[in-house]
């Protein structure tokens, strides 16, 4: 096992840890690069709904200011907040209780994304120089 893969977990495990550690997060989904649901709490329909919300929020956020990659969106409402965090091509979207500790929720979501197991990427082959 390489050092880089120590601590890497599957998306479902990352969600279990996340919901166990954070009492402020209600529903959460982890999405792949193209927006498909890798894992979610609750029903699959709930996961799909969160995935649509994340895509819509990222679209609205991109429209709000041109230029710059959006890495997080937080929408605060009296009944609770909705967070979207993008990291290394993956996205975490979560609903929370009212008045959450935003920094803590963001940290937990980022940590969950970082702990996901990354598929090993093939190393590019270096061409040997043929100079004599």
């Amino acid at each position, binding site marked *: 096992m390489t050092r880089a893969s120590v601590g890497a977990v599957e998306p479902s495990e990352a969600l279990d840890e996340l919901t166990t550690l954070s009492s402020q997060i209600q529903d959460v989904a982890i999405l792949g690069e193209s927006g498909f649901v890798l894992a979610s709490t609750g029903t699959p329909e709930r996961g799909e709904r969160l995935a649509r919300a994340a895509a819509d929020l990222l679209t609205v956020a991109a429209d709000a*200011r041109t230029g710059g990659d*959006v890495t997080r969106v937080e929408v*605060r*409402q*009296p009944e609770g907040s*909705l967070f979207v965090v993008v990291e290394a091509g993956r996205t975490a979207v979560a*609903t929370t209780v009212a008045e959450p500790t935003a920094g803590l929720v963001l940290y937990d979501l980022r940590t969950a994304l970082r702990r996901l197991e990354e598929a090993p990427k093939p190393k590019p082959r270096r061409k040997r120089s043929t100079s004599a």
Partner: protein
Amino acid sequence: MRRLFWLAVAAAVAWWFVRRRGGSDDSGATIGYADGSAVTFEHGSPELDRFLDVATEARNG
């Protein structure tokens, strides 16, 4: 004494009303970017309505 009682009732009603209005304005959206900058939309900005619509739909379905 009676006047003091009604004054206290009026103050309580005013406090409840102010708290209620303050609660309804407790909405906002913050966008963070890769360069570390962030934009916040507070109550009254037209962009915020779009964020709130999406969030409400995600929460309530």
